């Protein structure tokens, strides 16, 4: 088994979404905290693709941003290659390690600066990290990267608006790779793309991973996409990880009731005519999560314990799930 490249322990992130001070004083409203991520612990092993799946409000995007340092965690610890990077005091050390991670974003139209030429966009990490001696070397590197992602070296002279969504995502990938990272966090990289373009990008990302020995954390709401790219899949619900397992295991034998519901909700393109159990309810408001297990109001297997006690993530071999019913072998 490969060593862990990224390790999260007890990560939590709260956002203060209280009304302005004046309103609170006048209306006597309490402070409101949004618990976007609650008690998340897992590791990403070198060379693998770990996917995080969940619907809106599950905290997967927030978690991605916590990992790359766009937000600071409220509690918990993040380790990269064995060294802690969540310590707000250790700037220099953290910055050095953070250079080995990069991020690819969801919206191909907003993730490239519309006023910069593609060449400058892709060259930015090279320049900032001081990886090249002079302009000529930078130009050569940019050309190499553009070719690697399936574009032409001449495309560097153009502006982002001259490219389609899929091509822009390729440019984003080129930018992410230019700093020679080991670890890429991909936040819904293909959700905004047409299905045939998605296929091109997923194939490209797969090839690049094999060529460059990259490790991916792949975030998506689409289980079908994730089943194609991931070695292991983690399922999130309302800020908590409810299940982690190897892809084949998760899809064949889902444990947590929410995973089962998600799988059931994936449209049946094989047209096997399988009867789908209708999905119950909607994701609750993250500001007012249910007591105990966050999923219990929608769960067909909930009992008294589920409404009072929040389940912990329990490992059995390579699979983990946070469910009382699973733990008690009820389902």
């Amino acid at each position, binding site marked *: 088994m490969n060593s862990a490249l990224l390790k999260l322990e007890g990560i939590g992130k709260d956002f203060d979404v209280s009304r302005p001070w004046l309103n609170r004083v006048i209306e006597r409203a309490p402070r409101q905290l949004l618990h976007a991520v609650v008690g998340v612990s897992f590791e990403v092993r070198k060379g693998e693709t770990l996917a995080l799946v969940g619907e809106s409000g599950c905290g997967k995007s927030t978690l991605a941003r916590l990992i790359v340092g766009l937000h600071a965690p409220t509690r918990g610890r993040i380790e990269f290659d064995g060294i802690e990077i969540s310590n707000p005091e250790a700037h220099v050390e953290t910055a050095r390690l953070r250079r080995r991670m990069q991020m690819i974003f969801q919206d191909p139209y907003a993730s490239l*600066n519309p006023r910069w030429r593609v060449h400058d966009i892709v060259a930015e990490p090279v320049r900032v990290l001081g990886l090249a001696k002079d302009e000529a070397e930078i130009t050569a590197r940019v050309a190499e990267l553009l070719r690697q992602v399936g574009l032409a070296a001449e495309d560097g002279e153009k502006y982002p608006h001259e490219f389609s969504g899929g091509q822009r995502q390729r440019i*984003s990938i080129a930018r992410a790779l230019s700093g020679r990272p080991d670890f890429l966090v991909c936040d819904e990289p293909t959700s905004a793309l047409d299905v045939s373009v998605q296929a091109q990008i997923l194939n490209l990302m797969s090839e690049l991973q094999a060529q460059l020995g990259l490790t991916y954390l792949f975030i998506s709401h689409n289980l079908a996409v994730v089943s194609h790219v991931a070695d292991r899949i983690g399922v999130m619900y309302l800020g908590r990880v409810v299940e982690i397992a190897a892809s084949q295991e998760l899809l064949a034998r889902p444990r947590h009731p929410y995973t089962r519901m998600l799988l059931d909700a994936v449209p049946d393109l094989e047209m096997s005519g399988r009867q789908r159990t209708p999905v119950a309810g909607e994701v609750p408001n993250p500001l007012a999560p249910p007591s105990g297990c966050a999923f219990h109001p929608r769960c067909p297997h909930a009992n008294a314990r589920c409404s009072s006690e929040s389940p912990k993530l329990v490992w059995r071999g390579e699979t983990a799930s946070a469910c009382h019913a699973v733990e008690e072998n009820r389902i």
Partner: protein
Amino acid sequence: MNLQRIWNHDLAYSFRRSPVTIAAAALTLICMGGALFAPWIAPYNPFDASSLDLNAAFSPPTWSAQGSPNYLLGTDDQGRDVLSTILYGARISLGVGLASVLFAMVLGVSLGLLSGYFGGTLDAFIMRVADVQLSFPAILIALLVDGVARVALPSDSHDEIAIPVLILSIGVSGWVQYARTVRGSTLVEKGKEYVQAARVIGRPALAIMLRHVLPNVTGPVLVIATIHIATAIITEATLSFLGVGVPPTRPSLGTLIRIGNEYLLSGEWWITLFPGIALVTLVLSVNLLGDWLRDALNPKLR
């Protein structure tokens, strides 16, 4: 970028299709040209006190009965040629207008960027200052700054520094609209993923603000500035009209209008009318240009 591409660019196309805009641009160019080349094309130098001939005071324009061929548009109460004074005065009006807009723009854009990017207490502070300032009319602010300057600085240097103080006061009275607009745009751009990407790459906040955000928020600033030039010119004219703007020895269009105002009802109409027409023409054409620019740059209308 060759000439062909510029001609075919969307902005140029929209410009070519609007006769009003072309006329406005032409008029602005004429006004600016006149102001710029005043020392060479004006028949007289109205600021040179020694060249003034008091006997020629109150001459009406050339085409009227007692007009003199020397003074095309007549003279004012001190014998200054109205045409020359318009040209030189326009120089001051335009110079003060452009300089104060530049000052307001730099001040407003910087504060707006800082406010929008950092948020929090800094944002709250800057915006509250802006809000307080907005509750005062711009003229009052300008008067205030001007008054403070007069008190603070020695009285014999008033005339030399009158114009910089004027630029300062009009600039200070006008920064808020830039700050607010830029702050709004900065808030929008800050949430976009290319800014987050730059943060992930590890660029410091200042670099992100200047190199990433600033180029994307300047669009509306240009439009505001164009229209603000017109407002600044009017503000300067108003202040000069009130007597607290440019010194009387170097009259601007506003001063001329004030001088002429006193004689309007006694029959010397040309002293107010021609500077007035010049001012209106200048301000109107700059306004129309600004209108066109705003519509042409609006992505939703394209």
